[in-house]
Structures are given as structure tokens and as C-alpha cells.
């Protein structure tokens, strides 16, 4: 291994330039006042204090609620899907996994625009409903449309890790459970579910993290008034121009995510 050590150097430089330095800059912005000159920094906690206002706290609560709902739906729909795929004949498995991942090959913006077309007041779904004599339903710019967009975008990130942990599970463990007197239901809860926990935890982490930090999907499917933490950060940097406050929110989000990941990891290792 030692002779390969120098091959690491480009990656270390890469990581330093593109990850560590920006992180330091964000921290620097978060703890300083607006309008600083490069050499005269004045440190402050004002940016964090500002975040404690009800409006902003509500944004973060809403983000978490939405992230939670998205994750729960992805898990509830993705686990059975992953389970069915892992129990299919091997050749079919590859095909089904391909079908799950194919949407990810298409640009996320395009997919989201497609949903806008489907969901809008005079979109395809409402036109079909009209043919059946049902009044148009408002779907765009609601929690429904945003959650739908998030679920559809992030579903593969739930399905793939769960599928991986299910498919590499030793089948004789399942037979052993049957053999020892467990029926299908008991075998699932006492063996299959427990052994697929690493995949479930990974899936939850991925989907939750992606959905609380996203800003494109809520912006397009939720409309301009739909404020999630990702949109808030974006607007601070792009439209409001308060980089210091934007950096502070980013930092808060990062800390919350780290705490969340810590707990998930703990849960995972307890199950082992």
C-alpha cells in the first residue's frame, strides 16, 4: 500500500481547495459582520441571533417536516420495492434496478418540469379528470406537489442501499428462521428487517439529507413563496445578498445534519 501513498496527494489538494477552504470561508462569513474589508474583520453572533426569529425557525421546522415525510414515504414505498427486486430471478434484478435508476439519467430540472406539466391546473392529470367529469384539482404549489417531486427524485437513493443489503443477505439465514419455527411474518421482522438495517439507515440518511437541503424542486413545484431552508440559503446569497446570514444558516444546517448522522450511525451499530 505504501507505494501508492503519493497517489493520494492530488486528492488531498483537491479536497483542500474545494471542500476545506470553502468551509473555512463559510465559517468566517457566518461569524463576521456585513461589509468587511478583507483585513478588518469584526466578529459577531448577530447572524445566529437573527436566525432565532420565528420566521426562520419556522422555515427550518417546515424543512424538517417535509424531509421527514419524504423519507417516510420513500422508505414505505422503497423497502417493498427493494424487497421484491431482491427476490426476483437474477436476470430480472438487473433490469429492475436499471428501471429504478434510469430516471436519474435525465436531468433533474427536466424531470421536475415534466411534473409541472402533469400537475398544473390545466395539466394532463386535470385534463384526464375533466374527461371523467371531475372538477380540476389544484396540485401545483402545494405540499403535495413538492413532496411528490422530492419522493420521485430521491426514491433510488432509498431503494439501492436497501436492495444491496437484501441481496447480499445469506438465503440460508431465512431458511434457518423458517426451520426454527418462524412464519413468514416473524422471519421478516426478526431476521430480514434486522439484517437489512444498514441499508435502511443509509437510505434514510441519503434521502433525508438530500430532501432537507434541496432548493430547486421546492422552488419549481412549490412556487416562489415556498420557503425551505435550501431556498432561504439560496435567496440570502443570490437575491438578498446577505452572505453572512446565508453562511450562518448553512452552518446551522450542517451542524444539525451532523447531529442527525451521528444518531443514525449509533442506531445502526446498536442493531448489529
Amino acid at each position, binding site marked *: 500500500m505504501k507505494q501508492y501513498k503519493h497517489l493520494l496527494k492530488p486528492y488531498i489538494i483537491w479536497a483542500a481547495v474545494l471542500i476545506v477552504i470553502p468551509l473555512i470561508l463559510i465559517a468566517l462569513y457566518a461569524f463576521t459582520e456585513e461589509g468587511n474589508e478583507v483585513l478588518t474583520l469584526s466578529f459577531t453572533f448577530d447572524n445566529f441571533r437573527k436566525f432565532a426569529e420565528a420566521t426562520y425557525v419556522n422555515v427550518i421546522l417546515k424543512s424538517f417536516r417535509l424531509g421527514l415525510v419524504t423519507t417516510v414515504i420513500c422508505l414505505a414505498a422503497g423497502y417493498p420495492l427493494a424487497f421484491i427486486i431482491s427476490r426476483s430471478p437474477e436476470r430480472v434484478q438487473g433490469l429492475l434496478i436499471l428501471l429504478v435508476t434510469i430516471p436519474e439519467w435525465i436531468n433533474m430540472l427536466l424531470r421536475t418540469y415534466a411534473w409541472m406539466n402533469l400537475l398544473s391546473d390545466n395539466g394532463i392529470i386535470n385534463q384526464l379528470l375533466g374527461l371523467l367529469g371531475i372538477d380540476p384539482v389544484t396540485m401545483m404549489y402545494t405540499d403535495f406537489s413538492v413532496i411528490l417531486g422530492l419522493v420521485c427524485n430521491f426514491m433510488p437513493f432509498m431503494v439501492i442501499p436497501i436492495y444491496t443489503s437484501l441481496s447480499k443477505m445469506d438465503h*440460508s439465514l431465512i431458511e*434457518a*428462521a423458517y*426451520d426454527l419455527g418462524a412464519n413468514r411474518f416473524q422471519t421478516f421482522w426478526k431476521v430480514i428487517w434486522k439484517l437489512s438495517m444498514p441499508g435502511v439507515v443509509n437510505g434514510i440518511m441519503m434521502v433525508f439529507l438530500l430532501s432537507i437541503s434541496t432548493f430547486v424542486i421546492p422552488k419549481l413545484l412549490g412556487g416562489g413563496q415556498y420557503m425551505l431552508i435550501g431556498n432561504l440559503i439560496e435567496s440570502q446569497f443570490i437575491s438578498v445578498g446577505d452572505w453572512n446570514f446565508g453562511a450562518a444558516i448553512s452552518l446551522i444546517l450542517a451542524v444539525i445534519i451532523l447531529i442527525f448522522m451521528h444518531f443514525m450511525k449509533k442506531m445502526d451499530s446498536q442493531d*448489529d
Partner: protein
Amino acid sequence: MKNKLIELVDLTKNFDDQQVLRGINLDIYENEFLTLLGPSGCGKTTTLRIIAGFEEPSSGQVLFNGIEISKLPPYKREVNTVFQKYALFPHLNVAENIAFGLNLKKMDKSVIAQKVERMLKMVGLSGFENRDVTLLSGGQQQRVAIARALVNEPKVLLLDEPLGALDAKIRKAMQVELKKIQREVGITFIYVTHDQEEALSMSDTVVVMNNGEIQQIGTPTDIYNEPENRFVASFIGESNIIEGTMIKDFLVEFDGNRFECVDKGFPENEPIEVVLRPEDLDIVSPEEAKITGTVRNITFKGVHYEILIETENRTYTVHTTDYAEVGRKVGLKLGPEDIHVMWKMGTY
């Protein structure tokens, strides 16, 4: 008389268009140590899996105490399995693994703890309750797997090549131990292996299988001494197999000589095959024997020498503790009880 516990009646099994079992008929008795022995792909594991309930036979019946069970799921059968790679639950410790079946029966916690302790003692792992099963050695995992199956007090324990993954020394020790455990718990063991020595040393009954068919059922001594056909003779131990003719009861002819033998019941002048075990052949001076030849090769095997003797018709393999130098003219002496006559393959 022992009670019949399991009856397999005309069992067949097809996987896609491949026939793995071609009509298995077998009676298994209480307290019996029965071994299904055969080369890989002979259908022994499939037979075991049908008894366990993991496979459904394509046709035929599985009777358990006279009741047809071939459609019954595994969790409703009074049998437990020890899997080839143990299949211990990695998320549970030793005690939790053993208690798995008891917990499902909603047994009292203190009763479960007691039973687990007793099992661990029996398999020699007292004090291992809280160990992580993934950190145990192969032999220890094996013992946990046996304890996990036996704690449910099944009527039959199925073992699918349970010693296959262990190294030779531990395997020998486990063979003795398994036999001891079987006597101790007094239930039927059905054991699958491709190792003939394992089968002969542990079993009450050996079932030799090949190509999805039973070749012979018998005690280890029967199987070894009176193989029914060429397959059994060559699969179990080494042997010289010679085509010949059964002249009449107690008289057989091969390689132009007639020999007295102990076999009877064949039609007169029936073409048969004779099995001569290498250790039954004695090397004598050429004048004393009907078969004569030249020593072609001698190999030291530890306990005995393996000597190849070339005769007019064939080369014989002889196992003996006597030394004979290459090139020497020798005779081969056989007594009537050294000759085992069997039906030719495909004629029975």
C-alpha cells in the same frame, strides 16, 4: 421393533427440465443415525431439503408418522436443520441464537435461559452465552448451530454436510461428538455427506445415492463388504472390480479361473461383477495361487503398502503390510469370503 418415523414414497424432483430425484423410496426409523451418501449432484441435499420443507417434491409423498407433510411449510414441521455454513444469525449473540426457536414459542424467560444453558453445556460451550457468533471459530459456530436446532427438541435433526467447512482434525473430533450427542438425545439424525469415511464411521444406516437414485441401503459393514453394484463398490473404499460369470451358487468364474465364493441366489451363468477389496488380497508365491503376475509399482502409504500387480488380464491393487520389490513374480490368493459378487450395473 423400531418405529418407522419418516417414509419417502416415489419421490421425484425436477429443477427446470433437469431431473434431480428419480423415485426415492426410503424408510427412516426412530433413533436412527441415517446418512445420505453420494457424490455432489446425486440428489442427497435435495432429499434432505424436501424433508426439511424447503423444497416441494415434483411427485411422491413424504410421510411423517404416517401423515403426508410434503405441502407443510418448514415452520410447522417437527424437524430442525443444521446448515452447511451454520447460518447463525449475525445480529444475535450465542444465547439469542439458541433461544430463537424457543422465543417464537413464547416460552417463559427463565425456562428458556435454563434450556439454553443445558444445550451449551451439552455442546461444550458453557459460558459462551454473550459471545458474538461472528467471532467464533468454525467448530464453535458448528456447535452453536447444533444447539440451536436441538433445543427445540425436534423428532429429527437434519444435517447438511455440517463438517464440510472444518479442517481435518476438528472434523474427526466432531464426528465422535455428533455420534455421542445423537445417543444422548436419542432422536433420529439424517446426515448428508459425500465423505464415505464419515458415513461409515458414524451411521447406523447408510444410503448410497447416485444420479438421483438410491444405489444401496444398508449398515456400514453391508455397504462396504457387500456392495450391490459397481458404483457403490468404487465409491466406498478402493476396489478391484472384475467382470465375471456366476456359474452356480457358491461358484464364480473370472479371468479364466473358477473360485469358490459365499454368494448365492443369482441365476446360473449370469454375467456379474466381482469386487475384490485391496486389503483382502494376499501376496503369495506364484505356485500357491490361481492368479499370478508381476509387481509393477509399490507405494508406501503409512500403515500399508499399495502394490500394483500386473497380470495377464488386468492390474490389481493390493494393500498389504508386506514388502514386495518391483519386478518380482507373485501370486494372489483369495479366500471365498474375499470375493463379493454383485449384479452388473443396469441388470437389476
